[in-house]
């Protein structure tokens, strides 16, 4: 059985309309994959940057997967939220990216999007915040039923991921 180590961090986010951001993240892998150690989901701290506009989380990721097949390669899915000074949370964006498949260091920039509602919802959003959210996080990383969504572009989340593979070459996999 081949093994995959993902060692890195969710560095932070930039390009969002508000600061004071946090991120809920998770890793989804197919049925052939088994997680041996590490947390596969979590929530970062809320950062309100003093210099510049990039919010920094430095959230560590250390995962050890074992697999019997290449299908269902792990994907990291993210939800970026804004927390204001009163403690209220508002969704700012969804995004996902595949875990890199080649060994070594990678700097990944994950783009994000936010669902956009009807014009009444957009008007309400401009005044009181809130807005439509996905019922289930599966839509973030799956293509099914995406055609029903109308979304707008949001900022970028930066991740630094180090990949260590084990025994992939014994199975003839080139990466």
């Amino acid at each position, binding site marked *: 059985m081949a093994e995959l*180590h993902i060692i*890195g961090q969710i560095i*932070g986010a930039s390009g969002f309309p508000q600061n004071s951001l946090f991120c809920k993240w998770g890793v989804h892998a197919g049925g052939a994959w088994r997680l041996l150690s590490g947390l596969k989901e979590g929530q970062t701290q809320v*950062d309100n940057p003093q*210099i510049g506009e990039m*919010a920094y989380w*430095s959230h*560590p990721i250390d995962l050890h997967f074992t697999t019997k097949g290449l299908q269902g390669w792990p994907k990291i899915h993210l939800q970026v939220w804004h927390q204001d000074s009163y403690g209220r949370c508002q969704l700012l964006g969804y995004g996902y990216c595949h875990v890199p498949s080649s*060994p070594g260091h990678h700097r990944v920039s994950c783009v994000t999007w936010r669902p956009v509602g009807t014009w009444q919802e957009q008007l309400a959003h401009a005044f009181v915040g809130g807005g439509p959210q996905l019922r289930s996080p599966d839509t973030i990383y799956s293509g099914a039923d995406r055609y029903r969504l109308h979304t707008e572009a949001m900022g970028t989340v930066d991740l630094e991921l180090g990949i*260590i593979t084990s025994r992939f070459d014994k199975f003839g996999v080139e990466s």
Partner: protein
Amino acid sequence: MAAVNPSVFLLTVNGQIEGANFPEYDNLYCKYCYVFGHDWTPTSGLEEGITQITCKGSLSDKLIWNFPLETTFKSTSPSGWPQLVLSVYGPDVFGNDVVRGYGATHIPITPGKHSRTIPMFVPEPTWRLQRFTSWLLGRRPEYTDPKVVAQGEGRGVTRVRSQGFVTVSFNIMTKDMKKLGKSPLSTTVSEGGLSWRQRQEQQFGSEIVSGHM
């Protein structure tokens, strides 16, 4: 040099905490320590230390420590890969020592020369009154154990403020990672047979090949 079938691999870190960039603060020092999983053991070098107190130069806004990091770890598995945890402290207006930033980064996983710019953040009090009283009394919120910064759990909805960066440079060597079947290096074989790196490793028998090609 090594046993025919090694069960552990080694990770050697030679580096330095070069300096910091904190626009609003001066006269800072830095404490460092390593956080690693239970498969890992440090075999040589110091696991923690404190730098000198430095101040900004007359010509530049940079704070320089130039503090050496020399440590070797051994492990049976890459899980729990070591992280370098930094805490930066400095005096406030009244002369008390307060924390100016916490930060953490994983030690790079590939051999060679690497540079990291680590963002530093402080925990934030939630109420404005608390912010004022903590400024007045010189008692800012601090983590009881800075190693919390290297963990993922328990950080959700803690408020922080990022206010600076620390630059660290690393020179990494590994030993016997390939013999154990773990590869942070691409193993694609080029058209002409072995790649330059693979020929070097065959000749010298270990992964002590620098990252420069």
